């Protein structure tokens, strides 16, 4: 699956798309693949504050619990309620329909420090080499 050029990526495998001071956040295709069948998602409520680098929710597959880390700081304005009934959307469309939260950012400029798509692809390719070695 292609990694959208307009997104930025974290080392913990979240993506963020920023328009002005509004951002959409999700987990990457690599992350959903590592997790396997997603069966449960826990997200903050609208109004909650999230802080860059801190956990704001969890995604669970049959066999594992995985924390989701905030790529940037801000306030949650909307969460993807569809995922409660259809968590498998995260496996099927991680970069699109399975967005997790929409956030009003405290400092939109800070996302420049995150990886762009080519850098993230290189990062996961390198990690793949490590695990298969």
């Amino acid at each position, binding site marked *: 699956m292609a990694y959208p050029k307009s997104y930025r990526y974290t080392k913990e495998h979240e993506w963020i798309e920023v328009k002005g001071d509004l951002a959409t956040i999700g987990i990457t295709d690599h992350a959903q693949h590592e997790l*396997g*069948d997603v069966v449960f998602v826990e997200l903050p409520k609208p109004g909650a504050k999230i802080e860059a680098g801190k956990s704001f929710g969890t995604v669970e597959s049959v066999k594992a619990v995985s924390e989701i880390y905030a790529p940037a700081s801000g306030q949650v304005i909307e969460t993807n309620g569809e995922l409660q009934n259809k968590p498998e959307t995260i496996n099927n469309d991680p970069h699109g329909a399975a967005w997790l939260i929409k956030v009003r950012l405290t400092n939109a400029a800070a996302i420049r420090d995150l990886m762009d798509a080519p850098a993230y692809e290189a990062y996961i390719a390198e990690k793949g080499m490590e695990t298969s070695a």
Partner: protein
Amino acid sequence: MESSAISFMSELRKTPLNALHRRLRAKMVNFGGWDMPVEYPSSGGLIAEHKAVRGSVGVFDVSHMGDIRIGSGKKPGGALAAVQYITMNDASRLAIGQAQYSAMLYPHGTFVDDVIVHRLGEDDFLLVINAGTREKDIHWVRENTKGFDCVAEDLSDAHTQLAIQGPRAAEVLQKLTDADLSAIKNYWFTHGTVCGLRNTLIARTGYTGEDGFEIYVPSDAAASEKAWTQAMEAGREFGIIPCGLGARNTLRLESKMALYGHEISEKINVWEAGLDRYCKMEKGDFLGRAALEQAKAAGLTRTLVGLEMIDRGIARDGYRCCNEAGESIGVVTSGSPSPTLGKNIALAYVPPAYAAVGMILYVEIRGQKCRAQVVLTPFYKRQKKAAAPQVAGGS
């Protein structure tokens, strides 16, 4: 031999099918020191694998399991006496060709490991043991059979063990063997030619709660891959898929089969684990018996229960159980979504006062008290095929 095994502990061990799993692009994990497939995205992943076994058939590489043969010494009878002493079930009741679920116990009545004991001959037994406890078990068996006239032999690396599991497993395996599988009852075994490999042990056993077989073929890569590939070919018409340890775990959990390090361990005794019916106190002395007698008289302080989550959330291994007041009462040993039931299930140790079916208790999930209900176990029990009444076999 033992010391060399220890010095290699830091390196992940591989089954003879490791290269094949990697060609299939299985997701590999470190399981008890073994590099094992946890799921095969090319099969559709864990849930698809689980459902294939419940609905049709799947194949697992379980070569990481260990095998210990306990055979006769100078005079016959020594192997049986040794097996009777180191395991809790009554091996004297086994016919040749029959197997039983059993366990090896510490003197204080807790678990060294659970095992399947196969009676190969009058005074000849094969114990199938867990992967993560292999060295410990082999050492334990050698130490505790020293006083018996028998020979304990570690055959763990001699076999590739494949589990073909599911309601169509017999039809798949029958295509590959001259042995009449319809004559093998649950927990019985035979030897036959499988995939051209002669004298292969074929046992109607498994760890899925479904009908199925475990076969023990020579551990060279060529024979192992041949058996795997032919099983896949033979099962194609039934939609057979490779299955990993992830599905193996959810399948055994639904069927309430114990997993070492979770439901059973060196800290848990037989009564607590609810494995009474595999422990034959009347058979004579065995390791752990005296302590179990005392424990029985003292009464249970905790017991294993099945839980079904009422609130949203998945109870996981190690999560705390508490009562209405928030007081800690026990701990979850295994928990997962159940692909068959579509519910979140768990096994937990709680005091008997909380163990009644229908009891509401709580599992603490990331700081939240989530409601759960004690339910009847096993969570899933397969429907037996309607057939002519059979004489009940030993358990």
